[in-house]
């Protein structure tokens, strides 16, 4: 009758954590390695594609969409493993090595599920909502530079463009909340829109403060300026409070704990996507994690030196590593903190974050003319 439980194996969990991070880095490394191969035989073809405006745009869009789909699989696996590590459990273990293929299996499952549309749903809104949420995500990725050359479109006004485009998500979420004709969905949609629009303000002000001190809105130039010293040190009086505000706003924009009210499971079942199933649901999920990567990547570009790093690793890999570190920070916050109430969350934004971001903007003005 031996029922004495074995002591929790902390060392095992730490080992898994290390193995998991290594696996993630390995996959990114292989991707980066492939990109550095001498593709001599493909050169003429690539040059033709690169010079052809439509083919070039098509190729880049193809790469971006596939990157979103594939990196989200890895991110979800990573979040599950990381949450498991925090919660003294294993996370997915059965499909693939250490459960690496679990998310792929889940995606296949979602693809084969019935696409249920409630009878009393507002059909057009219900059908279009996942795409309204997903398309802005693709658009933002188009200007996200992984390195000086690895960028879909090096837009000079990228920072402004990103802010403008990502707000469209709110329309998609609202139409999802309304279209499902479910009271919980509606409450979740209303919460999400209120939250997105409120937290957009301090975020924009902080981004503009960074634009003011650096004098550019181009993502690539933001990074090349940080050669030698990252913004968070170089522009410390603006960048350190700015980074913190940006991170909090990003958490709120991404509907992550402690701001996960729109999908607060214990209150609203599943929030605005309660009525969605199958691939439509997967699109919301995809957009959520892709937005997470983008927000973290944007923070890395603004504050943490983008792809810059010692030459032992390729630039794109440096960018990916930094972004994953920021995402992991967000995950730690998510799995630690309780959830705020709606009025507390709005109060926190309007009474604290907005004034704080304005102060940061004032500091930026003085810092810029120093």
């Amino acid at each position, binding site marked *: 009758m031996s029922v*004495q*439980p074995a002591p929790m194996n902390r060392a095992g969990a730490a080992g898994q954590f290390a193995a998991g991070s290594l696996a993630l880095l390995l996959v990114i490394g292989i991707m980066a390695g492939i990109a550095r191969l001498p593709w001599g035989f493909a050169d003429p073809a690539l040059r033709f594609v690169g010079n052809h405006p439509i083919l070039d745009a098509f190729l880049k869009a193809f790469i971006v969409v596939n990157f979103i789909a594939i990196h989200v699989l890895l991110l979800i696996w990573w979040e599950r493993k990381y949450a498991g590590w925090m919660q003294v459990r294993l996370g997915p273990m059965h499909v693939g090595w250490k459960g690496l293929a679990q998310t792929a299996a889940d995606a296949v499952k979602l693809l084969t599920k019935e696409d249920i549309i409630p009878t009393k749903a507002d059909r057009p809104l219900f059908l279009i909502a996942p795409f309204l949420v997903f398309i802005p995500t693709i658009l933002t990725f188009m200007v996200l530079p992984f390195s000086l050359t690895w960028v879909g479109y090096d837009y000079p006004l990228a920072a402004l463009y990103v802010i403008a485009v990502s707000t469209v998500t709110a329309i998609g979420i609202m139409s999802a909340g309304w279209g499902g004709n479910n009271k919980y969905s509606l*409450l979740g949609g209303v919460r999400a829109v209120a939250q997105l629009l409120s937290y957009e303000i301090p975020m924009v002000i902080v981004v503009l403060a960074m634009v003011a001190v650096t004098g550019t809105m181009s993502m690539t130039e933001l990074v090349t300026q940080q050669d030698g010293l990252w913004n968070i040190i170089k522009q410390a009086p603006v960048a350190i409070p700015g980074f913190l505000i940006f991170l909090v706003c990003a958490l709120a924009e991404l509907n992550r704990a402690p701001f996960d009210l729109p999908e*607060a499971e214990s*209150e609203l*079942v599943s929030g605005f996507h309660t009525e969605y199933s199958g691939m439509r649901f997967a699109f919301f999920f995809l957009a959520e994690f892709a937005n997470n990567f983008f927000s973290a990547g944007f923070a890395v570009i603004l504050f943490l030196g983008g792809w810059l790093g010692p030459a032992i690793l390729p630039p794109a890999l440096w960018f990916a590593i930094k972004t994953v570190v920021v995402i992991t920070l967000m995950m730690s916050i998510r799995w630690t903190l*309780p*959830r705020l*109430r709606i009025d507390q969350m709005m109060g926190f934004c309007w009474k604290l974050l907005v004034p704080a971001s304005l102060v940061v903007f004032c500091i930026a003005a003085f810092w810029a003319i120093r």
Partner: protein
Amino acid sequence: MAVTTTEITSKGMTVNLGPQHPSTHGVLRLIVDLDGEIVRSCRPVIGYLHRGLEKMFEVRPYRQNVPFTDRLDYLASLNNNLAISQAIERIGGLAVPERAQYIRVLLCELNRIASHLVFLGTFATDVGATTVFLYAFRERERVLDLLESMTGARLTYNWIRAGGVPSDLPEGFGVRTRAFFRDFHPALSDNDRLLTGNRIFRARCEGIGVISRHLAISYAASGPVARGSGIDFDLRRAAPYEVYDRLEFDVPVLPEGDVMARYRVRIEEMRQSVRICGQCLKWLDENPGSEIMTKIPKVFKPPAGEAYSRTESPRGELSFFMVSDGTPNPVRVHIRAPSFVHLSLLPEMLKGVKIADAIAILGSLDTVLGEVDR
């Protein structure tokens, strides 16, 4: 310029929280009238788990009723066993050996810890801290392992019987229990740092769902709900049963009456339960004996009369009322379930709160639907 004004009218929204909602603890249905995010009124609908237990008690001999009580408050079934056993002992005039009384108290307090740990985990999930749930269940797992080594079951123990307990502690039980307590204190401190002191958690819990002292008394609240409202009342001390009058423990009482007070009372009760268990283990080690069960005739016919037993279950005052007419079966059994009493407080408390608070308040009452519906 012509100005047209349009009267904007809004009508409230009625939603069903439950019976299949992620945060109703069991099959409880709340019909909630909402005005935006604000709860205007709430009507609890119960009965989804009604099994007619009180009626079933009337057609079975006394001692065969004990297993049913496991299914009342399934998170603390030993406490239910104890309550009905006491009622049977009282009606039949049975004396319980001293050693059995200590074992009973030990088991009940361990079960109280397990029950409060479930509260801790589910309540933390209700306010959004999902990780605490797994930490609480990790500790609970060890309590369940201890109880399993004693009783063979992990949830419905059916171990405390009328007249005593069926067997003595298994070998090494004291050592394993003490080893658990050594790890349990740091775990509780960890929880204090992770959850109790957290600013968001405090913002969600302090000043929410206040039950005034007057309201608590007028609804006959008991247990942690009453003690969180400043009522210094614990049946283990007010009307001692078993050997509680020989044990040293404090009764935590907080005057605030809010969600936080109820939460903190339960956390402190776990610490006190550890103290009680330690004393019981010490006594059991120092006083070895073998008498743990009173002799009861095969056909147990108590004299005509009635008996009432009051015990402090993890949820509050759990009482059994029994009437005997001298036949082998009871004529009438009534269960005074604390969860039922506390659930009736809910409509009063939910008026005008935010829907997120409603979930936190429901969680803080720690109701078990098996006990409400019986």
